[in-house]
């Protein structure tokens, strides 16, 4: 594709929320005034130093940041190529990167005087982070979760309920993340007067993709500083898994204008790209869903297709609009990993490093297993370890036992 290269890859979106042709505000009229309010509130918060100071306090003392940048020595030795660093987002309070964004949005909701928070969740990590901060700030919390995901991510359902949230199993459509998002939007349209919609990834109508990206950029900003401290230079490559793309965007964005840094996003290839999968860039094309134009899995009539991934957090037929743009403009390489590759990576990291990853970042590790051996020993590769695997232990245990039988 012939797209003119911009002066900076970091200046988007425009004032209408567009990254190239992607993004925008494709929502029902009922929601439009709320989205405009949110944009105003976010602009004001960004300009208010007390907002950042307060957030930094919680990031340090409640979330536990900065998260370590850890040299994975045995994984590096095993693969025999690039020097692999793990950005340890799984050590955050609540066990994933999702909390970075939720903290920011909950603080915005508080500024806007909203008392009721709704969220969609796939793996349950965003739901747990939202339930956690709602507990911390005394806010009502309702989490929409596809009925299929309620089944396969039971530990997180129980956690959310313990934290005082109401988990609503969504029975419509494919009963996964996409339908949870539909249902959250329906709730929002109905309860506009008191409700804040806390979106869990860099998708949805403008300004969500931007504000989620900004709150997650702490991942990449810390990585820059930490790599400078240990190696005295920038990393050579970055790898992250992509559901909607928030952990990836958080790591990537601060490096987009450093041409020496190679960047890889990893989508979920499910059973394989010719079968059921969730790789919207590899297998989709631009369309409009959930408030933005982006790459989507759909049929010839524009009907959204079912995604499939072993990982509930990647089981979504779309991707954040800024990723679609970075793909078209060629700044980021989008790869994909199958269910089986992710399972193998899940086990490898557990055995070699004593770190059980979530199934989502196991997809990123799976591609590191391919990329790292082809790179020289002095190549510095950073993988976003976006979450820990506790929530997946029952599901993976069943699969492995079933397989070994």
């Amino acid at each position, binding site marked *: 594709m012939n797209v003119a290269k911009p002066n900076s890859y970091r200046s988007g979106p425009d004032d209408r929320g567009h990254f190239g042709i992607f993004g925008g505000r494709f929502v*029902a009229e009922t929601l*439009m005034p*709320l989205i405009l309010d949110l944009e105003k509130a976010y602009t004001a918060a960004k300009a208010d130093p007390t907002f950042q100071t307060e957030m930094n306090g919680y990031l340090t003392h409640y979330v536990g940041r900065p998260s370590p940048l850890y040299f994975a020595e045995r994984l590096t030795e095993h693969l025999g190529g690039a020097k692999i660093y793990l950005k340890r987002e799984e050590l955050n309070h609540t066990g994933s990167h999702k909390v970075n964004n939720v903290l920011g949005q909950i603080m915005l909701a508080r500024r806007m005087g909203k008392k009721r928070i709704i969220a969609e969740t796939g793996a349950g990590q965003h739901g747990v982070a939202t339930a956690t901060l709602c507990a911390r700030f005394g806010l009502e919390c309702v989490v929409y979760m596809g009925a299929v995901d309620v089944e396969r991510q039971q530990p997180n359902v129980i956690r959310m309920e313990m934290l005082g949230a109401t988990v609503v199993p969504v029975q419509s459509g494919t009963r996964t993340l996409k339908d949870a998002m539909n249902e959250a*939007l*329906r709730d929002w*349209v*109905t309860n506009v007067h008191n409700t804040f919609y806390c979106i869990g990834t860099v998708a949805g109508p403008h300004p969500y993709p931007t504000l989620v990206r900004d709150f997650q950029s702490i991942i990449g900003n810390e990585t820059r500083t930490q790599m400078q401290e240990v190696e005295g230079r920038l990393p050579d490559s970055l790898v992250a898994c992509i559901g909607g793309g928030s952990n990836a965007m958080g790591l990537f964005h601060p490096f987009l204008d450093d041409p020496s840094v190679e960047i890889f996003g990893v989508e979920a290839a499910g059973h394989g790209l010719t079968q059921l999968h969730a790789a919207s860039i590899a297998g989709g094309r631009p369309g409009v*869903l959930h408030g933005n134009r982006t790459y989507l899995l759909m049929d010839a*009539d*524009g009907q959204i297709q079912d995604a499939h991934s072993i990982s509930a957090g990647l089981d979504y037929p779309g991707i954040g609009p800024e990723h679609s743009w970075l793909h078209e403009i060629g700044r980021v390489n989008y790869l994909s990993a199958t269910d089986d590759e992710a399972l193998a990576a899940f086990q490898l990291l557990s055995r070699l490093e004593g770190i059980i990853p979530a199934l989502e970042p196991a997809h990123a590790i799976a591609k590191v297993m391919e990329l790292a051996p082809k790179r020289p020993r002095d190549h510095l590769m950073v993988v976003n370890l976006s979450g820990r695997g506790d929530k997946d232990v029952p599901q993976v245990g069943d699969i492995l036992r079933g397989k070994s039988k």
Partner: protein
Amino acid sequence: MTTRIDTRFAELKKAGRSAFVTYVMAGDPDLATSLDIVKALPKAGADVIELGIPFTDPMADGPSIQAAGLRALKNGMTLKKTLGLVRDFRKDDNVTPLVLMGYYNPIYIYGVDKFLADAKTAGVDGLIIVDLPPEEDDELCIPALKAGLNFIRLATPTTDDKRLPAVLANTSGFVYYVSIAGITGAAAADANAVGEAVARIKRHTKLPICVGFGIRTPEAARGIAEKADGSVVGTALVDALKNSLDAEGRATAKTVNAVAELTAALAQGVKGAKVAAE
């Protein structure tokens, strides 16, 4: 440009009567039955027909209309076939206004220019696209107006006086006032609150104002007809259709009549309304 919508509302105004607008889903439960239903609507008293374009992810619709769309899709309905349905309907009805209502993605994928040309040829008069607010007017609204189709916008309880001019700017045909903040099939709005909202919108536009969401019975339709230029009923008709299906979700001998009878009853309600003096 005058569309069938403009003509119909002018006639109704002369007759001193509020419009009755029906919504059904194209292809629900199958293409042939759906065509028979659409043909039966004007005879049963529908003044304007809204025809839903099936979509997998209707974010502003409640369970009834979601299910209707999925029934249609399961039986192979597409946007192309929806336009075919309109063409067949137009073979013996060249006066009843017909508006397509749905979500943007199927149209975007069909191709905006081709869609507008094909819709115009088929005999579509207007479009209601739920997820295209004025902020995205360049996508479809402006091209639709150029192609000679009405673009009917939704105004909602959250559309305040400051925002109304933007919402009304490129609206034509009529204004669809969504009487509640919510999804289709939700609770009904209070007729007095609707009256105030309609009066508020009328201060900004000369277009007819139809009210929908939550109207299910002839009594409710009459109440709204006394306050507005039209009332829209969708979920109740879709539910009547669904209740006539067999256990496998297929049409039965009762299906077309079930929708037509409820349409006739609702139309009686609207016609019994005492229309407010302008």
